[in-house]
């Protein structure tokens, strides 16, 4: 990190750029929806008009030392519908989250290559088609006007840069205002603008995709032509990473930090080549030096990935950013193909905001549309335990419960409505050809369902199988009393369940195979279901924030968990169990058929910081990750924490403003999290010395 980057980093961490921010109210654009209603604008036209209004109000700002510009100064995206209009839409439609297109992976490469002017020409040409419907025309015109507004804003920035003597910035901006990028710097600047623009249009959880792949040609050309040194390239790269942290507090998410700026490095190509290049390496190094929460790094690996890459990743884990997260091409790619993705698309997969596997440019999947609580399925069958003569019949009840819940869930996902996204559409393949907004669908329109409480569910079933059916140690009334009264008078039973019963994470086939059954049943229960857009449903092992939601009204569970105890986040062992160690955990969690749960959701391992005192132990962490991948694990995230530090940070947040933790599928600043999320991190079991 050179002085320039160091100073810029400090500037941003001190939030000095917040001084330039204005609210829509201050700028007089808070009531756009009234105007749109009065003018009778169509939804897509409103989106484009709102985008233009925002860009018009953006005040050009060049922060001290900046080379890659564009800073968000308008704090919020105004509503495009009036409250009454939106209420009416909501009553007749299913609205996913905030109603905006989100959590997909744009194709930046195409526009980086051809440039904004060519995109306009592409639209003009498409508009010549006499067979276009009125709606199609309206969409194309909206996309066109979005490009014009964006070019105007770039011009405004360029003029400002000239006026303050920043000629290099001005030259770069003027080049990419019309043309595709011809250098690494231009490519980074245009990427910044495209990424900026989709946030500006109200879209969120906007990922960065396979940055090391689509940026590499620009990088290597500059290096080979001698127009850029590696040091200068690294300097620009670090600045781009910094830039991702500039406006992220304005981005919508469940919690500060949950902003979806994921970046995916490496991966196997269809021809068998492992695509980890010099730029991938530089990305890891930049993250290592900057120690910031964005972009959130993922590495695609497989059984043949060189050990060195795991070591590089582990160096990053060591400093406690909660990433990289790893995904296993050997499992994910066949899993995606199994779900109907074309081979070339499956090989191009990335992660969405957290860990959901999606395809850049072509998938309008909603991988987080809902969550099935696997442990609630078990709990709700408990009363019928007495009517089931054997474990198999009890298990089939649970399968029925899953199917019933999924029936109800899938029925809900009906008549879905999304606010049109012409700017985002420009970054998704085929939208101009189809003359259709991406909110209406893409090549893939699959929905993903998270599966929460898998370990709690598997542990519960293992306990029932063992103590109710096999050993007949615990009778029906004892179970029911214990669960109804939260083990108040059944302390002995609770002790037995907590300390003696088989637990997922201890490399015990007895329970691990139950987990495998549960996940297979979850997948089977979704098979054959087609959503209204023609997409399929995918089962997953992620929880998102449902690990908090689903635990609050769960009550005590048959695994010995008390009502007030949490359930694990994502795909992880129960929080209270006595761990044998990381080897047992990875073996347990690699046993299920993970290609069947390709919606994603990582095993999470927590390590005490003291474990990684030297390079040797860091290399060993890399070996552990590689082992999980070799055993057939699908996804893994690692956290290095120091419990004392976290406890102290709760008491003295002012001393820990930069302390980073992994929450559920993203890294955030610990002191900015709600307490329930803070406590969950503290309560996870860490492996120490």
């Amino acid at each position, binding site marked *: 990190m050179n002085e320039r980057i160091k100073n810029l980093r400090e500037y941003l961490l001190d939030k000095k750029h917040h001084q330039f921010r204005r609210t829509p109210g201050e700028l007089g654009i808070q009531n756009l929806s009234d105007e749109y209603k009065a003018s009778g604008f169509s939804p897509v036209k409103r989106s484009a008009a709102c985008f233009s209004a925002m860009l018009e109000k953006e005040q050009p700002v060049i922060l001290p030392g900046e080379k890659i510009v564009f800073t968000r100064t308008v704090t919020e995206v105004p509503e495009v519908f009036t409250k009454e209009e939106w209420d009416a839409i909501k009553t007749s439609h299913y609205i996913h989250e905030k109603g905006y297109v989100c959590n997909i992976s744009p194709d930046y490469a195409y526009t980086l290559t051809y440039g904004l002017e060519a995109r306009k020409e592409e639209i003009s040409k498409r508009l010549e088609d006499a067979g276009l419907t009125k709606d199609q025309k309206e969409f194309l015109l909206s996309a066109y006007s979005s490009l014009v507004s964006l070019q105007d804003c770039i011009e405004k920035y360029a003029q400002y840069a000239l006026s303050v003597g920043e000629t290099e910035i001005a030259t770069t901006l003027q080049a990419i205002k019309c043309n595709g990028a011809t250098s690494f710097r231009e490519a980074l600047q245009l990427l910044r603008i495209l990424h900026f623009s989709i946030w500006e249009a109200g879209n969120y959880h906007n990922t960065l995709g396979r940055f090391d792949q689509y940026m590499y040609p620009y990088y290597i050309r500059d290096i080979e032509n001698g127009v850029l040194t590696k040091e200068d390239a690294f300097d620009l790269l670090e600045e781009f990473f910094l830039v991702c942290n500039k406006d992220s507090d304005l981005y919508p998410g469940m919690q500060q930090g949950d902003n979806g700026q994921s970046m995916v490095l490496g991966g196997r190509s269809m021809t068998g080549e492992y695509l980890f290049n010099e730029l991938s390496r530089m990305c890891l190094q930049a993250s290592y030096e900057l120690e910031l929460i964005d972009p959130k790094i993922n590495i695609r690996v497989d059984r043949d990935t060189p050990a060195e890459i795991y070591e590089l990743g582990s160096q990053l884990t060591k400093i406690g950013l909660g990433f990289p997260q790893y995904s296993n091409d050997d499992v994910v790619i066949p899993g995606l193909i199994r779900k109907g993705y074309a081979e070339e698309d499956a090989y191009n997969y990335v992660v969405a905001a957290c860990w959901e596997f999606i395809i850049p440019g072509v998938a309008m999947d909603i991988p987080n549309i809902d969550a099935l609580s696997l442990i609630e399925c078990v709990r709700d069958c408990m009363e019928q335990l007495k009517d089931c003569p054997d474990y198999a019949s009890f298990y089939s009840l649970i399968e029925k419960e899953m199917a019933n819940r999924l029936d109800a869930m899938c029925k809900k996902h009906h008549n879905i409505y999304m606010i049109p996204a012409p700017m985002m559409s420009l970054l998704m393949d085929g939208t101009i050809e189809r003359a259709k907004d991406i909110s209406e669908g893409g090549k893939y329109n699959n929905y993903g369902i998270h599966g929460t409480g898998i370990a709690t569910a598997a542990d519960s079933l293992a306990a029932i199988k063992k103590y109710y059916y096999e050993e007949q140690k615990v009778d029906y009334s004892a179970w029911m009393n214990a669960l109804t009264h939260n083990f108040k008078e059944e302390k002995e039973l609770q002790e037995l369940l907590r300390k003696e019963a088989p637990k997922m994470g201890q490399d015990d086939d007895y329970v691990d195979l139950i987990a495998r059954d549960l996940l297979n049943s979850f997948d089977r229960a979704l098979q054959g279901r087609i959503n209204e857009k023609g997409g399929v449903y995918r089962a997953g092992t992620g929880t998102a924030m449902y690990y908090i939601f689903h635990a609050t009204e769960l009550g005590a569970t048959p695994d010995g968990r008390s009502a007030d105890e949490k359930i694990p986040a994502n795909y992880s062992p129960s929080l209270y169990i006595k761990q044998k*160690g990381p*080897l047992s955990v990875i*073996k347990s969690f690699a046993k299920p058929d993970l290609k069947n749960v390709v919606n994603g959701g990582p095993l999470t391992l927590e390590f005490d910081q003291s474990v990684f005192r030297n390079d040797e132990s860091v290399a*060993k962490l890399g070996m552990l990750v590689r*082992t999980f991948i070799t055993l057939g694990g699908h996804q893994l995230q690692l956290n290095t924490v120091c419990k004392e530090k976290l406890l102290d940070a709760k008491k003295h947040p002012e001393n820990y403003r930069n302390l980073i933790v992994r929450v559920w599928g993203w890294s955030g600043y610990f002191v900015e999290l709600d307490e329930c999320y803070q406590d969950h991190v503290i309560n996870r079991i860490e492996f120490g010395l």
Partner: protein
Amino acid sequence: MNSLNSIQQGTIFSIEEFAVNDGPGIRTTVFLKGCPLHCVWCHNPEGISPEPQYMMKKDETTVCGYRITADELASRLLKNKEIYSLNKGGVTFTGGEPLLQYGFLLNVLRKIKPEIHTAIETSGFASEEVFREVLPLLDLVLFDVKHTDPAIHKKYTGVDNQLIRKNLECLCSSGKDFVIRIPLIPGINDTKENMLAVLDIIRDAKSLQRVEILRYHKMAGAKYSMIGKEYNPPFDPEIPPRVYNVFEDNNINTIVL
């Protein structure tokens, strides 16, 4: 104390998976209970007594140490043999002093040896016969050296170092891969003189892999109160030990932890 001679059963107090500081690769470390030494700086005081004992952990009384058969321990260790071989790792037996329960240790080693890379971490305080018998069953020995001076050794560890010296000399000439570990205790063994004396013994050993210098950590006393003991080190735990890396100067691979 017939348990010490039992071949079929032993007493251990922990099996730690993914122990990163006990030899190469991904390893599991088995802690055997009981130690003939009483080092004043011992950071695993619960490993000294050969019998299971009560231990207070976070207001909860637990029993530290349990009996386990050689068969069960071997099968637990063999369960992860693929992971060990995939990562050029294995199993390390430590303690306490693993050679104290030598009958049991030999038995377990024989059951796992052909399939698993094996190591012990030892104080070297064992009879020469035992030491020679165990060597062929090991791929690596982590040999602790505290002090070369017999009187000082006795004063701070409770035992004379004559046997240790003999076993170390045996190890040096055995051709068996080994690592020398020196716990560096402020004011007790962190002298240049002591380091040079250690160097003298090991400098010509061809199979010496490296020297590990383990600096005293002030958290070392944390477990004493858990087993109802007081930690009264006869040195100032706040003073960091001096590091005289005479090994590196003599081209011996050295790591300071």
